[in-house]
């Protein structure tokens, strides 16, 4: 189902052709990073810390180096020293520890050997002497007055007055609007609530993997799966202290990233091992390593106070947010602050957000980073307010929802946005009024993500037969190649399957930022459109030459050059005809588009979730789910729906079962998909995705990013549904059977509908 504003009629945009990379993927032939093998390659294995927090006293690699098949062993000292204050200090000391290990699983050395077994045996023989330090495992421990300090240099940024002693608070973000006290004074009802949430993993199926081949000329080629190969190049260059030109990164197909592959782990180690051994080195993480050493989303402690008038007008909001990004400074708190009150008109507000370090893996981005957690707090509190005031939960949101022209808490006025339309789409859906069964409950929640633009490049090459190749620098993590082809098809007027969309390596296409912030179809799409528009001008010029006409008398219509001048009739020229004569009209037909994209339209989503709760065991099953989201314009609607459905699936996992379990020393106890419980297919009903289309005025086709917003509403939607089914408000994640049963028992048994 699609809700559409009047929009231009497109020939290809909005259709659903089979994706160009689809057949290779479903037949198992697509090459992911771990599928690549080079002759003579060695296998690299990382030596990881068994301790959550320790000083490295010494590392003895001599025994490992002498073992059969071992060709190279490297440790932190093999890389240029980095000092605090360095732009990528955290990344550098995370990829390989220097003087200290900061979490269990932190890389301390790496070994390359002829076989993986040999490398594993040698890795076990690297002797690391640790001076074990007390581990800081929770936000409360990190903030305790006598807490061990993880980083001796960490002076809280943004502290007022400025920090004089190092602490575990990396930074504080504050901003406000209106008059908070006056706002609360106007309120008829004020509630304040606290929430805790746990770190969760992105749970991509494909473990991190790469192959690096470093030549004697000091140049290296890296094949890897990532969300941004230009970022792999620059980060690797930084860590190694190399010039960018020495590194070429060739993107492999990517088996899921969700934000977790916006940073690097293995590549510099593989390059260094390869340089030392003079052979290609392949490194593939195990699932265990992925869990212990790569990107969780932050855990939080949140306290929010909201004031509302009896007619439902929100008047004041006060948020105190603590995010932990693992052992490093991070943007969690900042992003939480940027999103917490953004969806509603709250004239008086204050936000204070702390980022805190603890001895767990360095967190990485995860779809709409930080926003699902603030939404969990805010959207469940809105439900409470609605109930207290006797106002329908939908009406309360409609009344306060931001719309075009409303100021955001960040200060700028919103451009055209589709929040109200998303609310209405759910309100008008049959699900909204469908009857519920016994022990079932329904929850409504909304979510917001701002989306980003950044740098993108595209090249369009026309082939001799009139087909086209579109090269971009954006790794395709959700079907973006198909969308690039559709936009190019619309511009050039040829069939999308006459266009081959490819992801070019770092030497084949202009600089392109990471596929993150839901930016690929938006920003890289803009670069494709720009390149195509230049190409159309070029095609008109070539056709004019062939026709002996003036370029101004040649239009590009439906994939053909059409003469519009007054000098009699001239046959239109097809793309194939123009390409066939290219040698005689000026040579190869190529055009590029490179830009810094502005105006990424914010994405809003509204979800409706039905759960059934087993009141005696606390098991929650999601039985029906409907999700609306503003896509601006859905270039390829199937992949918009896929993004929405994927966000829901991951959000439901986050809500119900996903959590890291550590022992008292900070050693992870559930580093497998058996015990780290992402939802399986049978856990979810068919997710009904409603695409709302309120075009983004800043994009030639009205696109807004859709990759992230869909994960924002599920946690509160599930929580509100559980409340409806049980009468229990769960303010701690995950809402596992144990927690739900505890809540039901504390509430005096079942109390549901």
């Amino acid at each position, binding site marked *: 189902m699609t809700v559409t504003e009047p929009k231009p009629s497109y020939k290809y945009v909005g259709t659903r052709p089979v994706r160009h990379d689809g057949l290779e993927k479903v037949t198992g032939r697509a090459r992911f990073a771990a599928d690549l093998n080079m002759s003579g390659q060695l296998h690299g294995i990382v030596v990881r810390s068994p301790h959550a927090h320790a000083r490295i006293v010494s590392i003895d690699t001599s025994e490992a180096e002498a073992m059969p098949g071992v060709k190279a062993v490297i440790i932190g000292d093999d890389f240029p020293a980095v000092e605090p204050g360095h732009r990528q200090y955290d990344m550098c000391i995370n990829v390989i520890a220097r003087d200290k290990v900061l979490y269990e699983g932190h890389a301390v050395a790496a070994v390359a050997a002829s076989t993986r077994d040999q490398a594993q045996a040698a890795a076990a023989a690297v002797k690391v002497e640790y001076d074990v330090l007390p581990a800081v495992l929770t936000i409360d421990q990190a903030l305790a007055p006598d807490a061990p300090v993880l980083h001796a240099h960490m002076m809280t940024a943004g502290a007022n007055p400025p920090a004089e002693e190092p602490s575990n608070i990396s930074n504080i973000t504050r901003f406000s609007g209106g008059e908070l006290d006056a706002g609360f004074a106007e309120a008829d009802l004020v509630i304040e609530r606290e929430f805790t949430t746990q770190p969760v993993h992105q749970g991509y199926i494909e473990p991190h993997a790469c192959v690096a081949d470093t030549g004697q000329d000091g140049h290296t080629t890296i094949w890897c799966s990532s969300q941004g190969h230009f970022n792999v190049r620059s980060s690797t260059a930084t860590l190694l202290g190399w010039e960018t030109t020495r590194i070429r990164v060739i993107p492999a197909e990517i088996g899921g990233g969700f934000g977790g592959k916006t940073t690097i782990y293995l590549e510099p180690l593989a390059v260094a091992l390869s340089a030392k051994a003079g052979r290609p080195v392949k490194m593939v993480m195990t699932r265990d390593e992925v869990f212990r050493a790569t990107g969780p989303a932050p855990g939080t402690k949140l306290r929010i106070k909201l004031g509302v008038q009896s007619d439902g007008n929100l008047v004041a909001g006060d948020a105190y947010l603590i995010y932990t990004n693992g052992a490093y400074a991070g943007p969690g708190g900042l992003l939480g602050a940027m999103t917490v009150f953004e969806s509603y008109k709250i004239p008086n507000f204050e936000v204070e957000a702390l980022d805190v370090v603890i001895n767990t893996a360095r967190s990485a981005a995860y779809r709409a980073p930080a926003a699902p957690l603030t939404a969990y707090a805010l959207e469940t509190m809105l439900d409470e307010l609605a109930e207290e005031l006797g106002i329908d939960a939908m009406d309360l949101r409609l009344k306060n929802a931001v719309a075009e022209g409303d100021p955001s808490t960040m200060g700028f006025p919103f451009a055209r946005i589709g929040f109200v339309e998303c609310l209405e789409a759910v309100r008008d859906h049959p699900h909204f009024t469908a009857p519920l069964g016994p022990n079932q409950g329904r929850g409504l929640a909304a979510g917001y993500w701002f989306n980003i633009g950044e740098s993108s490049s595209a090249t369009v090459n026309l082939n001799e037969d009139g087909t086209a190749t579109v090269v971009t620098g954006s790794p395709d993590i959700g079907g973006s190649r198909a969308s690039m082809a559709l936009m190019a098809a619309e511009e050039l007027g040829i069939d999308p399957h006459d266009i081959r969309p490819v992801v070019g390596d770092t030497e084949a296409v202009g600089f392109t930022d990471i596929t993150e912030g839901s930016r690929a179809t938006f920003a890289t799409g803009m670069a494709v459109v720009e390149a195509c528009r230049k190409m159309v001008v070029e095609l008109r010029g070539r056709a004019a030459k062939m026709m002996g006409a003036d370029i101004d008398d040649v239009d590009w219509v439906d994939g053909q050059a059409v003469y519009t001048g007054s000098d009699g009739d001239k046959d239109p020229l097809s793309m194939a005809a123009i390409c066939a004569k290219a040698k005689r009209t000026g040579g190869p037909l190529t055009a590029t588009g490179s830009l810094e994209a502005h105006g990424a339209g914010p994405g809003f989503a509204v979800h409706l979730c039905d759960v059934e709760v087993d009141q005696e065991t606390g098991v929650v099953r999601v039985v029906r789910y409907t999700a609306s989201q503003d896509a601006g314009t859905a270039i390829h609607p199937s992949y918009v729906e896929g993004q929405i459905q994927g966000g829901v699936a991951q959000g439901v996992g986050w809500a119900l079962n996903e959590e890291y379990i550590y022992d008292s020393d900070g050693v992870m106890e559930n580093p497998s998909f058996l015990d780290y*419980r992402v939802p399986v297919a*049978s856990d979810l009903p068919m997710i009904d995705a409603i695409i709302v289309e309120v075009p983004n005025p800043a994009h030639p086709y009205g696109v807004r990013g859709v990759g992230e917003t869909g994960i924002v509403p599920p946690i509160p939607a599930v929580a509100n549904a559980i409340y409806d089914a049980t009468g229990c408000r769960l303010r701690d994640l995950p809402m596992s059977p144990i927690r739900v049963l505890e809540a039901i028992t504390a509430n005096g048994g079942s109390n549901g509908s």
Partner: protein
Amino acid sequence: MLSAMKYASPTTVAEAVDLLGSEPDARVYAGATDLIPQIRAGRPEPAVMVDLKRIERLCAISGNGSTYTVGAATPTADICVHDGLAAAFPGLVEASGLIGSDQIQSRSSLGGNLANASPAADTPPSLIVNDARAVIAGPGGERTVAAADVATGPGTTSLGGGEFIVEFELDQPPARTADAYLRLIPRTEMDIAVVGAAARVTLDGDGRVAAAAIALGAVAPTVVRVPDAESALIGNEPAGDALAAVEAAASAATNPIDDKRGTVAYRRQVAGVLARRAVSIAAERARERGGQS
């Protein structure tokens, strides 16, 4: 690492016994759905892996009217589609069908599930409430023991050196008898039981319980029988106070641990709930079966 292991595939029980006798570091396997992940996770590799699935007796299901014989290495997928077993032991078949996923079930076996001796294994409680017997072959010939006596603790069994389970024997249940198995997992599949409960109930002509067996998984080092729940049912209709007594007795019989999969309090509470529900389902099935045996 699976590097230097040898592989053997005997085709008779005798051949397997000889092989195990001559090679002290040999290890039998059926589906290897426990064994391979354990080796991958760092458990020592055996020198020889002995595949039991080439031995016909170990993969056969047969019935002679009074007793069913199920080969210890039979894929649970075969058990799930066996009409005779489904009619006689719906709970055991239910438990077999819960193991892992379709892919796992094409390999996983009752013998492996029992001999792996995980406290959370799904089929042992059902084998136990049905009084299954394990036929064991070894250097001293064949012997038959109660399935309940095979596992002795987490990862340990009463099997002697060179012994393996050949098959399970299950007597055709009497009239008005049925079993049921329930487990709690946070997801809908691909998970390990936080609590499992098997029940078998025989009703008399008046709908009262004539015999009952209740066994719990994942709440103690080995499967726990609940005699207090069984005696609370005998002579009563499986309803009301009798079911409440089952619930209380099952909770009381547990001896669980706190671990990453559940807490003591949760396991205790839910064991009672599942035991009660399993008894209800088994009794309902027994009623439906009526006089058939």
